[in-house]
Structures are given as C-alpha cells and as structure tokens.
C-alpha cells in the first residue's frame, strides 16, 4: 500500500548535507606559481597503436592516454612513430617556423595600426602543420582561426594571407572579413566562421557529400575545447556517427578559451577525447606539441575515414602560448611565466631537437633558417603593404559591398547602392 505523503520522512531532518554548487576553480592567478598538476605526464612510446579498422570501442581507452612519440631527449619511440624521412621532417619544421615568423610579423603589424586585429597560434604550430602534412592536399579543411598553419603547410602564398589581414585592394575577400578569417578554395580550406563551432558539423556534411558522390576526399575539422560546449559539436558527432561520415574531427585543447580554463568547458571530469565514447566514434588523445605524434594520429584517422570505417575524434593536447587575440591580455588572468612551464614543451624546439639528435639538423642551420624566414615574411609584408593596409587603404570600392550577398544583386540592394552614391 502506498504511504501517505505526510508519513514520508522529512528530508530536512535527515543527515543529508546541504546542496553545494560546484564552480570549476580558476588556475593560478597572475603573480601565483603556475600549476600544471592536473596534466598527467605520459611517457612517450607506451601507447598501443590499434589497426585503423578496429571497432570504435577498441579505441575508447585511448581517450585517457596521451599518444607521444618524441621523448624528452628528442628520440622517436614506440608504435606511433610515423618514421618520416628527414627531408619531410625538415619541411615540417620549416612550415612551423614560417607560421611562427608570420604570426610575429602580423602581430607587430596590428600593433603598428596596419590592421584591426590578429590571432597567433604560437605554441600550437604542430597541430595545423603536422596535420596538413598527414592529409592529402585536397582533403577539405574546415578550420578555426588558429589553423593558419594549414595554409602555410600547403604552400599558400603569405602575400595572399597578408592582403586578407590588411583588407587591402588585393584581398580576395574584398575587405569583408575580420583579419585571419581566411578562405582559400584552391587550398581546400573552407571560409573560416567567426561563429565558433559552425564549421564542425559543416565538415560532416561535406564528408557525407563526398561519400554520397563516391569521391576519395575526406573532410577534416577543428574546434577549440571551449566551443565543444556548443550544440554544433554535438551535431557533428551525432551526424558523423549516424552516417559514418569520412571526417576527422579535431579538438584543439589549448587549455584556454580566452580567460576560461579548460575546466569551464567540461574538462575537469572527463577528457575531451572521451566525448567520442557515447557517440560510438573512434578517439585518440595526442600530445599536440609532438609533431610526430600529431602526424601519426592524423594519418591513422585519415586512413580509417578513407576506408569507410568512419570518423575519429582527436583531442590535441597543447597550450596557447600567446594571447587569445590582439584584443586580449592574458597577464590579467594567468601567471606570466605559465607558458614556459607547460610540461609538453614547444613543438618547434622538440622537432628541431629530434632532427639534431639524428644528425639531420644543427643549431646553426636552425638560426640560419630563422633569419631567412624572417626575411621571407618581411619581403611578403612589404609587397602586401604596397597593395594597401587597413589604416591607409586602398580598399575595395564601396560598391562591392553590395555584391555577393546574393548571386545576382537584387533591386533593393541596387537601390541602396545608389543611395550611398556609388
């Protein structure tokens, strides 16, 4: 027989504690000691490499590993070593260093008032560069604003990228987009969304289309750990799983979403790679500052996708060494020296050390390359500036503002153009 409600024990009399709301703690504040106690150190070379056709479930324990190939001495170890030839590695090193040199130059250009905004990827160069190396050049990239390294690795002209950042008369995007929101169809590089997360499920749609047409190309997308909280992320994983889309889905966990540490996005109770488990997708968790590990993991996921075994979610564990953007000052929310203490090191230094150890590189060549890349970037910037800068122009004519809203300019936009007098 059911108890009458007034016979039930009064919850307030029980010994239950009062409810308490949990707010994820903020990392050490500026002025305090950096603390990466939450970053578990995994040895290089110990993680198993399953074959690319295993059921997704067989990868799920990798959500709580960290695939590392380069050890602290710069040796490449373990089953994930992609065994790349030295020439490829030198090209990878060069692309990462060029990305860094480009970033430094454009950051300065913004400080000089030549453009409104810039975003560096310093410390995260291995993510985009090693991944571009592991993919086919026509695999379609749906990046965020911090994967400029894809364009550089694919040999896209710096001049074109700079003209976009300057919104000048040679900007193929006609001065419409915020700097760094590139688009390069010929480089299989999708127009970057300012709305975080939009690109992730779009990549799944592109991959579904490629599969529908019996194409060979796969899609690859990137999202920050912060934006994994957006519905777009969940849509991407759901559709990728349901339709077994040939797509590689990357979460770049650089620890920070502007000022919010990764715990605010849900990184405290589970890894981001573990998001794949409930969707039945394969997952890998990778040292994002290890060029060889990033390359190997991407290659694994790309092979799997290309063989119709479906999507892989990769968490690239890295550190945003610079500010979120030129509008951000990280010294207001994290210790200034935090980046130097990041336990997984710097991707450029680590690949360089590996090559030097193998007798394929030297400190002198490194210094020489740094200097020649700075010259290359400077020359491109000088040429770009001859086509204009945001502050001084020239820009596209104002009448182009009314074009491309639709394929054909409709009457109301023609009328508005006339109203502007152009």
């Amino acid at each position, binding site marked *: 027989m059911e108890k009458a409600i007034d016979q039930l024990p009064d919850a307030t009399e029980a010994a239950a504690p009062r409810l308490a709301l949990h707010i994820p703690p903020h990392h050490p504040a500026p002025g305090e000691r950096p603390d990466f106690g939450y970053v578990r150190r995994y040895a290089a070379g110990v993680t198993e490499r399953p074959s690319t056709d295993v059921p997704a479930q067989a990868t799920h324990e990798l959500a709580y590993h960290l695939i590392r190939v380069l050890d602290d001495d710069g040796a490449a170890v373990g089953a994930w070593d992609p065994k790349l030839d030295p020439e490829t590695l030198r090209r990878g090193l060069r692309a990462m260093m060029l990305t860094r040199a480009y970033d430094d130059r454009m950051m300065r250009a913004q400080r000089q008032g030549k453009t409104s905004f810039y975003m560096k990827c310093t410390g995260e160069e291995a993510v985009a560069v090693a991944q571009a190396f592991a993919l086919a050049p026509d695999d*379609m990239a*749906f990046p965020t604003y911090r994967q400029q390294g894809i364009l550089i690795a694919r040999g896209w002209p710096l001049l074109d990228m700079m003209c976009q950042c300057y919104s000048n008369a040679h*900007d*193929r*995007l*006609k001065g*419409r*987009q915020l700097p760094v*929101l590139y*688009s*390069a*169809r010929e480089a299989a590089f*999708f*127009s970057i*969304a*300012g*709305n975080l997360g*939009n690109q*992730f*499920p*779009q*990549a*799944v*749609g*592109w*991959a*579904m*289309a*490629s599969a*529908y*047409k019996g194409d060979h190309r796969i*899609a690859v997308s990137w999202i920050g750990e912060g934006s994994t909280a957006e*519905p*777009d992320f*969940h*849509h*991407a994983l*759901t*559709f990728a799983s*349901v339709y077994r889309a040939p797509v590689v889905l990357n979460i770049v966990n650089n620890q920070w979403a502007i000022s919010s540490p990764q715990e605010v996005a849900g990184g405290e109770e589970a890894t981001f790679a573990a998001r794949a488990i409930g969707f039945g997708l394969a997952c890998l968790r990778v040292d994002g500052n290890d060029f060889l590990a990033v390359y190997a993991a991407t290659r694994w996921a790309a092979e799997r996708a290309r063989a119709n075994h479906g999507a892989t979610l990769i968490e690239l564990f890295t550190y945003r060494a610079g500010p979120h953007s030129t509008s951000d000052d990280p010294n207001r929310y994290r210790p200034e020296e935090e980046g130097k203490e990041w336990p997984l090191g710097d991707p450029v230094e680590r690949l360089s050390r590996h090559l030097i150890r193998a007798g394929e590189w030297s400190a002198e060549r490194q210094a020489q390359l740094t200097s020649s890349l700075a010259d290359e970037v400077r020359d491109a910037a000088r040429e770009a500036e001859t086509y204009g800068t945001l502050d001084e122009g020239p820009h596209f004519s104002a009448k182009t503002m009314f*074009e*491309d*809203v*639709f*394929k054909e300019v*409709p*009457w*109301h936009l023609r009328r508005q153009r006339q109203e502007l007098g152009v």
Partner: protein
Amino acid sequence: MPAMTMVQALNSAMDVMLGRDPDVVIFGEDVGFYGGVFRVTDGLQKKHGESRVFDTPIAEGGMLAVAVGMGAYGLRPIVEVQFADYIYPATDQLISAAARLRYRSGGEFWAPLTVRAPCGGGIFGGQTHSQSVEAIFTHVCGLKTVVPSNPYDAKGLLISAIEDDDPVVFFEPKRLYNGPFDGHPERPSVPWTNHPQSEVPEGHYTVPLGKAATVREGRAVTVLVYGTMVHVALAAAEEAGIDAEIIDLRTLLPLDIEAIVASVRKTGRCVIAHEATRTCGFGAELTALVQEHCFYHLEAPIVRVAGWDTPYPHALEWAYFPGPARVADGLRRALEG
C-alpha cells in the same frame, strides 16, 4: 493536366528534381521511409533510393549545418524542418553560415540549399505547431523567402528554389496542404480538385522567385497577402462586396516591388494582411515600402491586419486567426480613411 493537392505538387517538384539532378538530396525528420508527417516526401525514398532521401536525427541545427557542408561540396540539399516552429535551433547555421557564406568568402563558397517548413495555424496545433516565422528570415541578408498559396505555384516555386544558387527558406502553409482555406473553419473543408491552380503539369516548370501574382483585379483597394491569407482575402473581398485588387506576393524576398507599386498607385489604398504576429511582422516592411514608393498616391492610411502579438493559443485559435471578418473590416477602414 492532373489535379494535385499542394502536398502532391510539392512532392512532384522534388520528384522531378531528384530525377533531373543527381546532386539533389532530401533529408529531415521522418522524410525517408515514412515520407514525412505531412506526406510531402511520400514515395520519394522508394523511387530514388535511400542515399538521396533519408531520415535525420532530431537536430535542426545539425541538419542545416550538414546542408551547408553539402552545399559547399556542390550538392543541392533540400532540408525539411518538420514545423516552422522548430526552425529556431537551425537559425545559427542559416543566418551565420548559409546566408553569409558567399559574401564572407568573396564568392568562393556558397550553399545552394532549400529549407522547407510547414507554417501557419488553423489545424489546432497550439503554439508550437502554428507559427509563421517568415519575417525572422526576410530580415536576414542573403536568404530568399518564399510562401506559396496554391499547388501550381508551390511546385513551380519549389523547383525555382532548388535550382537557385542562393539559400532559400520555403514556408508551406499547412492549412493549404489539402485544400484552399478561406478562413471559415465552421464550413466544410474544400478540396483542391476544382481550384484552377490545382492543374499542375507533371514535368518540369518554374514559377520565378521574386514575381508576385495578381489573383483578383480591382480598383478600390490593393490587398497585399501571401500563403493562406490569399484565400482569406479573396473571401473577405467577396463577402464585403469590395472591388479589391489582391496581390499574392509569393516571394517575400526578393520582393516584387513593381507589382505592388503599380497596384497601389492605381487604387490609392492598401491593406496588408498576414497570419504572423503584427509587431515587426513582414507587414511592417511592406507598410514602409508602400509609404516610401507610393506616398503621394495614397488616399488613406495603410491598414495592417495580422495575428495578435501573442503566442498562437490552442483553444482560441479562431480568435487569433485574422479571418475574413477582420480582413473585411480592414478593407472598409482603408476605404473610409
């Protein structure tokens, strides 16, 4: 020519396009095996195959994102959103991505997708199955917005939408799916069979986007309507005995401004009616445009007849719906003014 309902005409449009263009695919909730909750995609999966007409998870935002990606690849996806009321989760992808892709990429990428969604009330759908949300999308630059009112137009406009290289939002007044509805719920339902616009060719034809249709000529007052309200306005004009000229806009954006201006300059009076809520409804834009283009020809203030600014109430549906009596009252006010 066969007589078709609006459901059959829309189905025929997609059947024709699936047959003509291998890049056309259709997806949405329950559209595949089952053929859609309103039967608009009935039989298409069986005829054209599972990879061309398929069911999706319940995630409108995901559906639209996938459509953007497919569009960027080169397909022409048609997405069915089961009710216009459920389109809100898809708005970020529609507004931030589909509508702006061509612009933001300097013309490198575009998304030639069509979103179909049943709209409007009159079926006791309550506040979550009755809304008319067109003005949200006409406000977005880069989207085309279409609302057909009869089977012939529905098929021709849908084919135009699918063939268009810009994203199109295509709202289907669900109360018109199986017959014209003049706004008198107390009368027996009328089938499409005897309506002249139910004569629908079986093959390919288009009704161009951006062209209105004058469905009743008159000299006393111009009535600007679309969707279900076309039939309500016709009933109102007949019942009030007013020599109204009724223009079915068909496409809200791009709008056929020439047809509107020509008629209002002729009649000097204008009534605008829609089922959607009044404040910032598409009627507000129409009012402003008529005022901008026809001010010196107007002999009376422009009259708006619209849904009230409330959610669509389930039991009070017919107190909410701007039926023939309210439209006729609007016509009389426009003539008195």
